[in-house]
């Protein structure tokens, strides 16, 4: 655990307490069973907004508390532990970062206060294929009249079913630009996708959507801005993954301490002890790099990209390991729908794919380091 200040400790404890008592895994099961396309619990999100978690990275003059990315990461870790179904990370971290980093005063005024209050949900619409590739963008935005006309199809857009606002990456002719597209704009249509984690990952079609000149965030060749936004989104996902890994590991450990075979508690078997010691080791390494990435963002360091790719690659590999071990070490019971082990491995694979898998981030790290 990073060394926290008093506010961060309070926030973390509050999030932990809330997740355990108000949003346990059984709450996620209800969302899953309900099968609604929006894929989250509006009540849980409203409660989070009530507690101010929707404004953690947003500056105070736009209705946030400006506590920083590590602080929001702590919340996402705690709610990730219990698989809380909420758009918190997507709207208030990923999409809000685009406005904070690239938005002008009017754009910030128009959206940040609404995101900070939880009234508006924003989503990041970048990828157009099944594998993350921010360079492979075919969506276009042409200048027309005073503004822009945007067309293209974005796939697996997290929280796409409920979003009030999309931050869309599109080719401007000068490069890749980021555009603010209201969810109710003419020409925007959504197709829900039913995925293993029962959360929202919608296909969004933008058909000649007419936008004002003020729709463009940042420059017309904004690939650099997109990279910065994606790095924040990746760090947020990594924080959620840390929560999943820690909880999956703890639940497995608890199980080994209660299950008996051959007249022995399973945790007495050295073969299992060493597998758990190995997972513990990997999770500690994961925590160091995930917190390191969030701290680097807060400190505005110049090696954020490297640190984020290190964090996301490590998070992917570690959560992959821990979620597989969770099933194997629980045995048959872990494969039943009645048990929650399946929820963890399903959400884990979705998050591993989100904004670049381990291989993507190893290659990115290698390029950045000149290998």
């Amino acid at each position, binding site marked *: 655990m990073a060394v926290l200040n008093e506010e961060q400790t309070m926030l973390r404890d509050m999030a932990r307490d809330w997740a355990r008592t108000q949003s346990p895994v059984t709450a996620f099961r209800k969302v899953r069973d309900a099968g609604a396309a929006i894929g989250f619990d509006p009540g849980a999100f409203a409660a989070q907004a009530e507690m101010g978690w929707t404004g953690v990275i947003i500056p105070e003059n736009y209705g946030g508390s400006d506590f920083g990315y590590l602080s929001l990461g702590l919340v996402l870790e705690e709610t990730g532990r219990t698989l809380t179904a909420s758009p918190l990370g997507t709207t208030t971290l990923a999409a809000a970062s685009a406005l904070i980093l690239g938005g002008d005063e009017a754009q910030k005024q128009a959206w940040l206060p609404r995101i900070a209050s939880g009234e508006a949900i924003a989503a990041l619409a970048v990828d157009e294929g099944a594998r993350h590739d921010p360079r492979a963008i075919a969506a276009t935005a042409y200048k027309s009249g005073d503004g822009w006309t945007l067309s293209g199809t974005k796939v697996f857009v997290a929280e796409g079913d409920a979003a009030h606002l999309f931050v869309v990456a599109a080719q401007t002719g000068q490069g890749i630009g980021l555009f603010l597209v209201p969810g109710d704009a003419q020409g925007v249509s959504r197709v829900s996708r039913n995925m293993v984690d029962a959360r929202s990952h919608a296909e969004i079609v933008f058909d000649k959507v007419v936008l004002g000149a003020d729709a463009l965030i940042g420059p017309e060749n904004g690939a650099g801005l997109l990279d910065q936004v994606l790095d924040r989104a990746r760090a947020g996902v990594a924080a959620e993954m840390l929560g999943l890994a820690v909880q999956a590991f703890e639940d497995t*450990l608890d199980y*080994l301490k209660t299950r008996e075979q051959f007249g022995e508690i399973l945790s007495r078997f050295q073969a299992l002890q060493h597998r758990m010691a190995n997972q513990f080791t990997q999770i500690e390494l994961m925590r160091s790099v995930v917190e390191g990435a969030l701290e680097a963002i807060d400190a505005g360091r110049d090696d954020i990209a490297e640190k984020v790719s290190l964090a996301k690659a490590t998070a992917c590999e570690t959560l992959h390991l821990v979620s597989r071990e969770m099933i194997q070490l629980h045995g048959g019971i872990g494969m039943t729908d009645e048990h929650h082990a399946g929820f963890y491995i399903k959400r884990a694979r979705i998050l591993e794919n989100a904004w670049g898998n381990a291989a993507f981030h190893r290659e990115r*790290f290698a390029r950045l380091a000149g290998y």
Partner: protein
Amino acid sequence: MATAEMTNPADALEDFRTEAAGWLAENFPKSLVGKENLLATVEGGGDSDPEAVAWKKAMGEKGWGTPTWPKAYGGGGLSYREARVLQEEMGKIGAWNPIGGMGVMMLGPTLLEFASEEQKKIHIPPICRGEIRWCQGYSEPGAGSDLASLKTKCEDKGDHWLVNGQKTWTSGGQWADWCFALVRTDTTRKHEGISFILLDMKTPGVEVKPIRMISGTSPFCETFFTDVKVPKENLVGEPGQGWTIGKRLLQHERTNLSGGGRMSRQHGPSLSDMAKRYVGTDDEGCIADTDLRMRIVRHEMAARAFQATARRVMLESKGGNISLASSILKNVGARITQERAELTLEIMGMNGLGWSGDGFSQEELGATRGWLWGKAVSIYGGTTEIQNNVIAKRILGMLDHQ
């Protein structure tokens, strides 16, 4: 830095930076850049170079070789932040720490915690000045991973202790001035029968025989004790408290030896540069062997995660806390050290397997020997398997398998 708390801490830290940079510029001879000999703190050496001698003396007197130890015992009395600033300033000019060895890494911190005031005053200042080389008398031929089964006998003879027995894998035993050892003062109880003593290697009855290893070197010794008389005041803590003290010392060893200490810094060229030199590059300037390239990347990322964890452990361990993450440093550090050595060999091909003589560069011969020597890292100070037992039992609370 008594004034540090009085003013703005950030300003005080910058003042200290200026002070440290000034002192280093005055005392570190530029001729010593790149001449750090990591073995010197164990084996001695460097004595022939008067500038190295002067540098060691200056750092020793300033206490900055042991920057966070109390001034009262010859340490630098710096805060962790100041120590980090000092390290940064040293890094900027290529200055290295000439004070090291087991006294610094293991014994000193243990004495600070458990020794009597008099023992601290006698034994810590020479460690800070780099004057006394210490060795560790722990393992025995019949007590390796099961260290607590050690048999070296230590009898109370009224006005002295009488020690008889054999230790093995005594690192640097042939060069050491003193030895800290675990001995048995009570044969009726296993863990509670062990005591921690300090022993002058020049005492009659102490005999040292170097052991030749697969690397061709003899960094370890067998040490024999035959009727060795040890003064009463050389027992640390209480008789029977040795296991507690000895385990605490191992924590320092595990953090330092292959963990967060000096070893976590990588020396020499990066694997990537080496691979480009030996294997070549593709059209984009990347390492030509794509399979090797990705394994180097994985290794480098693991090393970075390890360094981040070592830093986290240091920050979390302020104020006497022991970070849970410290328990993983030994295993991870060992894994990374050995992986780096194996990758280096792979990069060099047959040139990385030369034993001596013509046809091989110094770098290549060093890689071969370092690779073989490095196999010790996952064995000494608690094997990887023992470390996993410790994590499973002490941290995860899984029950004893025995």
